[in-house]
């Protein structure tokens, strides 16, 4: 088993790592880069706690190898706040109580980020459908859906830009 040179960007910062091909992206982010905001929970493509954006699309980082990130741009929950200022999505999840224990929250927020980056309107039903790959065992989801809608409002006040 040969290690494979992998070059990619995480939250705008370039990295070059020699990776064992069998290692999952979530472990590379957490163990090699210390970005423990991305959670590993079910480890079986069900719960979505490990959701990150790869080239702008939300994916489950427990179901993608680290070496597959070669040449790609990755955004994790750590990349959302700018200069200590929380992203509107993060503010909204606090404001509308979109979390209780908080374990699923990084995944919920990254999927919501992908959703809102599509720059269109979502009905409550569509928000629920888009979040169907992310499991929360505390909130009952009501607060999460409210948070996404509130974040959309906050962002449109700022001109609607996801950044």
């Amino acid at each position: 088993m040969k290690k494979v040179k992998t070059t990619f960007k995480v939250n705008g910062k370039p990295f070059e790592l020699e990776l064992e091909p069998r290692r999952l992206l979530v472990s590379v982010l957490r163990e090699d880069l210390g970005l423990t905001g991305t959670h590993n929970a079910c480890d079986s493509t069900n719960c979505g706690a490990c959701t990150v954006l790869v080239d702008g699309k939300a994916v489950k980082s427990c179901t993608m190898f680290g070496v597959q990130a070669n040449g790609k741009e990755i955004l994790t929950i750590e990349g959302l706040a700018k200069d200590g200022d929380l992203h509107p999505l993060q503010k909204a999840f606090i404001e509308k109580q979109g979390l209780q224990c908080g374990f699923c929250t990084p995944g919920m927020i990254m999927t919501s980020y992908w959703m809102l980056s599509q720059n269109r309107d979502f009905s409550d039903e569509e928000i629920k459908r888009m979040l169907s790959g992310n499991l929360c065992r505390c909130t009952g989801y009501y607060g999460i859906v409210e948070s996404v809608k509130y974040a959309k409002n906050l962002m449109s006040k700022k001109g609607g830009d996801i950044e």
Partner: protein
Amino acid sequence: MEMHAHLIVFISRKIFLFIGSFVMFPRPFDYFSPKNLAEALELLQTLGADTKILAGGQSLIPALKLRTLSPKNVVDITGIKELSYIRKTENMLKIGALTTTGAIENDSEIAALLPILTETASEIADPLVRNLGTVGGDICHAAPANDFPAVMVALNASFTIASKGRTRTVQADSFFINKFKTALKPDEVLTEIQIPLKECEVGSAYRKVKKGSGGFAIAGAAAQVSVADDNAVSECRIAMTAVGPKPMRAPEAEKALVGKNPEAAVLNSIAKLAVEASEPVSDVTASAEYRRKVLGILVKDAVEASYKRAVMGCYEKS
């Protein structure tokens, strides 16, 4: 006593940290990431049979992590952009094998031409999985609960298969052999799916029931119905998901529909014939008995929806 308490806390923390650091990962393999199809075919020929192709990885990676599969080599073809496309020709819809199920779900041309593909794609796993999972992967993995195999059989699709220096075409009907087993040889790659586009008089639909939002199909039914000038059915194809080792056709049910209108009594008898053609097994998702019950309803729904689309298609175009 206090010593003991400290010791217990200490040990349980150690155990907790140990479990917390334990993640599933596959047995070691060699990794290859060809940049184009020619390179991939070359690799597959030299690497030999103990090789798996990674198309989207949403079935393969879980299987590797569970170590139910442990190939020596993994050929990652996700970077081959030339195999991701949706093209319409005069009488054919051509889909590149590496097109993600999410791309199919959100394609407006597909939604207008073949809504069956939209409804199939949008019910596969969840949106995050659909961002990586590919239609070719869904077909070649050939799990009994995968949806596209039955849909492709119902649509009478054909598959273009390439190996080094050679391409061949296989009909969906003869592509699926058994559970996880297809007509693909170890050095071959599915490159394109071709779905014949007919005039307005054809409609198709897929109906399934799954366990939870991201769960596997309990059962599914795909149908394609053609109608004659008098609006009676002239041709019908039915293929069923998760009720046999491969997509199951229902030939008796198909014949029984020809020349008729799908009224309640006709639909009931078709459902019965289709269920008789199925071979469901009991597993962790559902019992065989439950699968049969659900299947009858799904066949009725799929045939009825296909028929409506066939009739409405002509109406809208006239």
